């Protein structure tokens, strides 16, 4: 029952937010806090229970195929759902600083987005249901960018909507084709049906599935929507987009592509790993050259998530567990950096990292938090990133092509290079002439970073809660 509540909660809360005051920003902020905290509380309770699933309800039936509705929350789903609720909660806390207006509208949109993302993460058995949420999450995200975005938000919305919608066309057609052949939407039926199809059809379907998830993750060369979307979206939304929504892409690879096409992938996984690793290097190298903090973080996300995809296609249990850890870690670090970047922008009025600088001298508390999270993004041991990267590297090394581990290693070195550059530009350097006396981190924003730091360290030293949900 809890999982059903969790699924409905964001939508109900979103509706509740409609009743909040439009004029009194303070009151609506408090209400928003409660509304975003509720799904987090439910997800945490679910985590403590170790997961849950609902029975199958008939949703509708079409052309003789009955389409059921069921929610499943175990393993990867469980952790991704929890991460989504956590990031949404934190994003709302930071939104007060990042947004000048419209906290209420932001909360409504955020909760709707959260609900659809959770819906996608919970649909692991029924592909039509998954597709529904996969498409649905684009809408609230686009509306929020249009409402709160930067100067080029029109362009950003257009690119985001068209690119991601067009990106899901291959999946829609391939999935419907498979469903029509199988006469069922259940994943087990799809797996069985695929086996009787001719090889060329199987490969076409694999490519179609992969294209869509490669757009969502994103992987090179289908990443072009990401830079402009993340950089035009307000910071808290960018955090949710990169920390939670982009992970639906990786999740899609893990839950749909790999189980359905497993036999095929045993032969062809090398291509996927190669593309993903190239994408990792690509993201890291481009991050080295960015001066816009959001674009830098966008390419850093591209790099990290590509590495996660590479880990998935090693097809080993150990690597998959590593991917789960890496995804949670990436959600925490990327989310945290987006939140803190937003604060830096508010202080300096710029998104260019060349205009930041010297926060270590003027705002040591902020600098310590930022520095810690950035160092965690480099995956220093004792932080969560290290566990994920080490397990994935292990998977790559044992994927039959040990050489891949060296490429992964190069990517890890490059990730340190761009993160250190970011730290240097944001935190260090001479104190600028302009007066910075008035700026300081508000207690709420400072306190909101504490759970991020604690979780990074906790899972870095004791990843068993995540790992044990896979074995």
């Amino acid at each position: 029952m809890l999982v059903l509540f969790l699924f409905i909660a964001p939508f109900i809360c979103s509706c509740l937010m409609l009743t909040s005051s439009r004029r009194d920003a303070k009151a609506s902020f408090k209400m928003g806090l409660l509304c975003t905290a509720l799904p987090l509380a439910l997800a945490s309770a679910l985590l403590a229970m170790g997961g849950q699933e609902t029975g199958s309800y008939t949703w509708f039936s079409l052309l003789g195929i009955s389409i059921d509705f069921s929610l499943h929350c175990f393993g990867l789903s469980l952790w991704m759902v929890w991460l989504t609720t956590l990031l949404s909660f934190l994003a709302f806390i930071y939104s007060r600083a990042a947004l000048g207006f419209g906290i209420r509208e932001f909360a409504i949109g955020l909760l709707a987005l959260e609900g659809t993302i959770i819906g996608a993460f919970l649909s692991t058995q029924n592909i039509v249901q998954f597709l529904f949420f996969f498409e649905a999450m684009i809408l609230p995200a686009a509306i929020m960018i249009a409402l709160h975005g930067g100067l080029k938000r029109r362009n950003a919305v257009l690119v985001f909507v068209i690119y991601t919608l067009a990106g899901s066309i291959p999946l829609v057609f391939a999935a419907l084709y498979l469903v029509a052949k199988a006469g069922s939407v259940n994943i087990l039926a799809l797996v069985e049906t695929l086996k009787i199809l001719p090889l060329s059809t199987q490969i076409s379907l694999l490519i179609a599935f992969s294209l869509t998830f490669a757009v969502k993750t994103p992987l090179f060369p289908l990443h072009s929507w990401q830079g402009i979307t993340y950089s035009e979206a307000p910071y808290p939304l960018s955090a949710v987009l990169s920390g939670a929504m982009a992970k639906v892409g990786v999740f899609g690879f893990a839950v749909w592509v790999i189980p359905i096409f497993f036999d095929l992938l045993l032969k062809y996984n090398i291509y996927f790993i190669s593309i993903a690793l190239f994408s990792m290097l690509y993201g890291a190298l481009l991050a080295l050259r960015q001066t816009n903090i959001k674009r830098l973080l966008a390419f850093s996300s591209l790099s990290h998530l590509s590495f996660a995809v590479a880990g998935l296609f090693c097809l080993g249990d150990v690597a998959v567990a590593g991917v789960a850890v890496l995804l949670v870690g990436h959600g925490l670090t990327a989310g945290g950096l987006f939140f803190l970047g937003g604060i830096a922008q508010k202080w300096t009025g710029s998104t260019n990292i060349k205009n930041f600088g010297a926060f270590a001298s003027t705002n040591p508390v902020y600098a310590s938090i930022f520095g810690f999270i950035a160092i965690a993004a480099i995956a220093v041991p004792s932080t969560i990133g290290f566990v994920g990267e080490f397990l994935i590297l292990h998977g790559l090394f044992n994927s039959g092509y040990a050489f891949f581990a060296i490429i992964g290693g190069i990517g890890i070195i490059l990730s340190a290079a761009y993160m250190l550059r970011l730290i240097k530009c944001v935190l260090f350097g001479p104190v600028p002439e302009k007066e910075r006396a008035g700026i300081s981190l508000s207690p709420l924003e400072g306190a909101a970073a504490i759970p991020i730091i604690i979780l990074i360290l906790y899972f870095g030293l004791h990843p068993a809660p995540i790992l044990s949900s896979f074995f």
Partner: protein
Amino acid sequence: MTAQIPLWVIPAFPLLGAILLGVIALARTKSEQPAPEAYIGALAVFFPLCSFVLTVIFALGLPNSGLTQQMLGLPGMAALSSGSAYAETLGTWIAVGNFKITFGFLFDSLAKVMLLFITGITTLIVLYSLGYMKGDKGYTRFLCYLNLFLFSMIVLVLADSLPLTFLGWEGVGLCSYLLVGFWNKDRLSCKAANKAFLVNRVGDVGFLLGMLVLIAVGGTTLLNYANLNEWLLLVQPQGALAYILALAALFLFFACTGKSAQIPLLTWLPDAMAGPTPVSALIHAATMVTAGIYLMARLAPLFVFSPGILDLVLLIAVGTALWAAVTGLMQHDIKKVLAYSTISQLGFMFMAVGAGAFNVAIFHVFTHAFTKAALFLGAGSVMHALGGEQDIRKMGGLAKKLPSTFLIMLLAWASLIGLPGLACFWSKDLILESLRFEGAGSLLFYVAVFTAFLTAVYMTRLMVLVFFGKFRGTNSLAEKTHESPIVMQIPMWILAVGCVFAGYTSLFRLGDSTMYIAVLGSGAAILGLVFAGIYFSKKIPKYSGHSELAGFVKTWTFAFDTLNFIAVILPVRIAALVLGWVNDFLRLTMQMVAAIPHICAGGLRFMQANKLRMQLALTILCVVILVYWLLIFIR
């Protein structure tokens, strides 16, 4: 007595110190009042001191038989069962199926030697820092980092498995980064800090890959030192297996070249001198940079069973030692001279490793730690006296003004160049000894002797230029010159005593030396001393107005920077540039696709023009078509 105290208490103290000082540093950022330095200083010294005392208690509990070559191979069950080691497992770190990594500590003879000098010297240097960093805005933060460093270093040494060592390994790298870039308003410091972290990171990936090879060979159990060494002695790898292990050894050695500044990853250490001098003394001379030698000693059996790797180590070690000694000869910055000297001495340690004499290498680590720490602290004292001046061409005649510092540095200098009877003499003699009977050829032996000669030359040059002759700085500076406060002098004197007596410790059990090698080694030192003494007291290099190097000196000094630039940095930059173009191209095509609806929308808007006549015309046209069509349809 030691049975009741768990091992994890040793690193727990400095960790607690780091957390406490960190919280104080952050809590006091708002207040204008400077932190009460006396209390904070006492706190900062207290935690390392506790670690040191605990280490001594543990060390006394172990039967002291001296570190021998055999014991390095047996930090495992054999040592445990004979009662010459403590071990404890704290818990699981990463466990997925067969993949299992645990937290555990191991205190054996090797860890004992390392920990004794690490905790001891750290305590002394923290004490020294109390005077050196007095009045600095980041006083508390600095001491917090030092405590954090000590924690990481203890974990590195005390760990019973490679992954936990790696935690400490990256931890010390991180602290080094934080401390090199301590004065973070200065862009050069930040650059040096980034370089130190990145170059080390390159090596660290070697560490990761080395671990992966070991896991591939025998599962995660092989990551535990005791299991690994026992397995190696049991299996006695031959043939293909030996070559796979050699791959692991190669990766791990690569990691060591990063941390211990050997060819090709040595470029970060001279730049790291941008940090405060106590940091240079502690991290970049005495402790962290010796982690590579420690790791190789810890994995001695692995390296012994890996064909060809030790020869490579020897070759790189001799090359590094010679190159760095020549470079040290040409520097004008007092800390740079000492930095290159450190690289050269690390080369000597790796020579011993390459020759298979792991315990001799650790012996040199031990003696060198006292000597180089004393030298750096002395250099810091000189700089402190001269208001931060680092150019030795502007010094001179300081022996009279800073008698205490002079005496300390004299002892350390005598030890480092290997004058008979002092600490480094014993270890250097044994290194030469081990090289002489190594199959790698006697050429390397003579190169090593020549490097020892060069060591004497550049160190004597430094001493002559700093302490003898006339003072070459400004007059106002000459008047202000003063001896350091007592809190800085006490640690220096203790270290100076170490420079004299560290060679006589019973922590090691080493072979006897041959007479003629001792004569040859000390002969080289004395020859270099006399030569440099005469040459540099006559020919003092003139200060030419700028401190940058030029010409051949520059080419030589930055040879490896240039090499790294061409081999690594340039390709990365080019790749980033080219991929930037690719990205622009992709973005452009995407913009074009996105423009299609714009164009369509524009077209439709034209149809729906708000001009009345147009609207009317269109309506009439449509009605006509509709009526016409209806007429046809009805008929």
